[in-house]
């Protein structure tokens, strides 16, 4: 009997969302508890800051340029390599419960396997998962969760925020107390909400296993991704009027706009509502109109959703304990990318490679039976990426990571990271919108600097970039790209980036906007 692997992901969660990483609002005792017994990575980055490319990296262990899912809407081919298949071949029972998003969600012709399975309620899975029960936020799409809602609680369908408007654009309809976009007071009972459903289905799948089975379960929560519409019964948890504004939000308008103006031009264009560079941010919403109250209310909603996630995790861990598996259990917790949540005066995400979106929580609590516990406690400051997860799962299972995986098993501490050369992590962005807008970013993080170069597109001419000193400027408010004194550093980082970045072989067609 070997180690069991519980892989927990959230969607669009900031590094500072949890107590273990210094979060002071959302109470996350369950996450904090296994973090205290495990390894926390303080510089973990996704290889792309939107869902489909990032999740494709998680399941393949490959860079975006290799798996080819270069923007949302580009499906991961069904025959792409999968860590779940590797583990299944090694004798593991495998499941993915919650949000997958390897294939487009907007699929009225039901072309994609995961939507087909969700539509008919089949759970046999694919991509190496022998069980899949899928969900996304609310009752939208053809997921197992939306089918469950339609069949059991049809009155709840209209309770969630309606994500798309009549123009099939992501809606900017205001809500809540502050009129913030994508907020709604949701009448859905808590036990019908997708967070608890994911935990319920996970527990159900675990209950069906034999006690001596080895298993890999990816439990994937759709929250705290917008829209922010947690059950209104839970709004009492965090009063937005009592929160402090994020430190990343310069409250003085002139100061805020000066910071944005020192960044590449698409920052200001989006701020003024003149550019839509990511479908998932409401196209009609103008960030310059964002108020301090709206930022506070969005943050409160995210904190509430994170508390619900933590409690759901607690229920699953209790079920695992009851099955007698805790001593053999490895827990890996992370998210696919971050969220502005008010930083610089923005919400949502897009081609903006700052810590709001790029620095994510990542925790690995090795199985106590494998020498975990106090001996494994560490904080790793060296850079790691989500492409390191798949080989880590292989290592846990005692399987040699296949050659097609491009990451490496996560280091257990900084000494291990140094010895194995964890020096840098790269993140990329490529997008082509229906109106022809093209944006391409290539980013390297190393030696406490973040350096982003912009390839020529329809907005940038190839000369723009960003360079931040994370020690002196942790909020990334001072762009050093054009600082003559940093020119040689910038050049060194760009050379290192070019040497270590995997460029896409081809840009396959997007089959949906998301």
């Amino acid at each position: 009997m070997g180690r069991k692997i519980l892989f927990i992901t959230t969607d669009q969660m900031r590094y500072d969302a949890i107590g273990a990483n210094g979060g002071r609002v959302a109470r996350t005792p369950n996450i904090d508890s296994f973090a205290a017994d495990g390894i926390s990575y303080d510089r973990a980055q996704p290889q792309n800051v939107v869902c489909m490319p990032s999740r494709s990296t998680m399941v393949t262990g490959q860079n975006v340029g290799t798996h080819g899912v270069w923007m949302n809407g580009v499906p991961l081919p069904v025959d792409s390599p999968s860590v779940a298949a590797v583990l299944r071949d090694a004798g593991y029972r495998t499941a993915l419960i919650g949000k997958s998003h390897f294939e487009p969600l907007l699929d009225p012709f039901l072309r994609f396997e995961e939507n087909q399975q969700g539509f008919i309620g089949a759970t046999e899975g694919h991509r190496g998962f022998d069980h899949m029960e899928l969900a996304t936020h609310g009752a939208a799409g053809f997921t197992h969760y939306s089918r469950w809602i339609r069949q059991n609680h049809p009155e709840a369908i209209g309770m969630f925020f309606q994500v798309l408007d009549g123009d099939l654009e992501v809606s900017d309809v205001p809500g809540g107390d502050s009129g913030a976009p994508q907020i709604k007071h949701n009448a859905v009972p808590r036990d019908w909400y997708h967070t608890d459903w994911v935990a319920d289905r996970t527990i159900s799948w675990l209950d069906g296993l034999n006690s001596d089975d080895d298993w890999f379960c990816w439990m994937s929560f759709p929250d705290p991704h917008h829209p922010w519409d947690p059950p209104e019964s839970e709004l009492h948890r965090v009063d937005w009027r009592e929160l402090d504004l994020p430190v990343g939000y310069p409250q003085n308008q002139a100061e805020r706009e000066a910071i944005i103006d020192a960044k590449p031009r698409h920052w200001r264009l989006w701020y003024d509502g003149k550019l839509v560079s990511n479908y998932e941010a409401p196209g009609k919403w103008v960030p310059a109109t964002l108020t301090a109250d709206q930022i506070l209310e969005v943050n409160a909603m995210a904190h509430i959703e994170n508390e619900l996630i933590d409690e759901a995790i607690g229920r699953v861990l209790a079920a695992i304990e009851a099955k007698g598996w805790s001593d053999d259990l490895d827990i890996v917790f992370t998210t696919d990318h971050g969220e502005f949540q008010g930083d610089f005066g923005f919400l949502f995400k897009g081609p903006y490679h700052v810590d709001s979106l790029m620095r994510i929580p990542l925790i690995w609590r090795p199985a106590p039976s494998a020498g975990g516990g106090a001996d494994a406690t560490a904080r790793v400051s060296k850079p790691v990426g989500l492409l390191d997860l798949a080989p880590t799962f292989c290592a846990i299972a005692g399987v040699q990571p296949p050659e097609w995986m491009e990451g490496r098993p996560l280091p257990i501490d900084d000494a291990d990271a140094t010895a194995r050369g964890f020096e840098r992590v790269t993140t990329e962005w490529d997008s082509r919108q229906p109106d022809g807008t093209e944006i391409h970013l290539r980013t390297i993080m190393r030696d406490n600097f973040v350096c982003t170069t912009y390839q020529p597109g329809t907005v940038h001419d190839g000369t723009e970039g960003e360079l931040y000193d994370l020690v002196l400027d942790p909020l990334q408010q001072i762009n050093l790209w054009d600082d003559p004194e940093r020119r040689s550093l910038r050049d060194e980082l760009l050379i290192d980036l070019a040497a270590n970045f995997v460029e896409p072989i081809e840009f396959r067609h997007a089959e949906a906007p998301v």
Partner: protein
Amino acid sequence: MATIRSHARVHRTAEDVWKIVGDPTRIVEWFPGVTEATVEGNNRTLMLKAGLPVHEEIVTLDHRMRRFQYRITGPLPIKYHLGTMDVIEDGEPGCLLMYSTEISPDPMAFVLDGVISEGIGNLARMLNDHTEEQR
């Protein structure tokens, strides 16, 4: 308004290809996700695998020019749509199959581009094993 276009060279005569393209009910044989097609007068109704109907107006069915045009009228969230299929004898071997779409709102272009390209590929393969599928 977004414009998308797919095409394929089919190594069959234009007359052969038009037998399928020019019969609006035969879309079920090649278009992904369509399980049923009924035509009444100038109206075509498709039933999708997901159980959703798609209502369309047949704008042009020109057997001489081998052109078929239609509009989606509901219930998909479409503000404007015109789909055009042309089967063209262009002097090269076989014929050219062209599928053009004008559509608003723009996000639907992503969805239709993918499904139409798959459909054109299906149709070309159905007619001939040797096609040059492009978009």
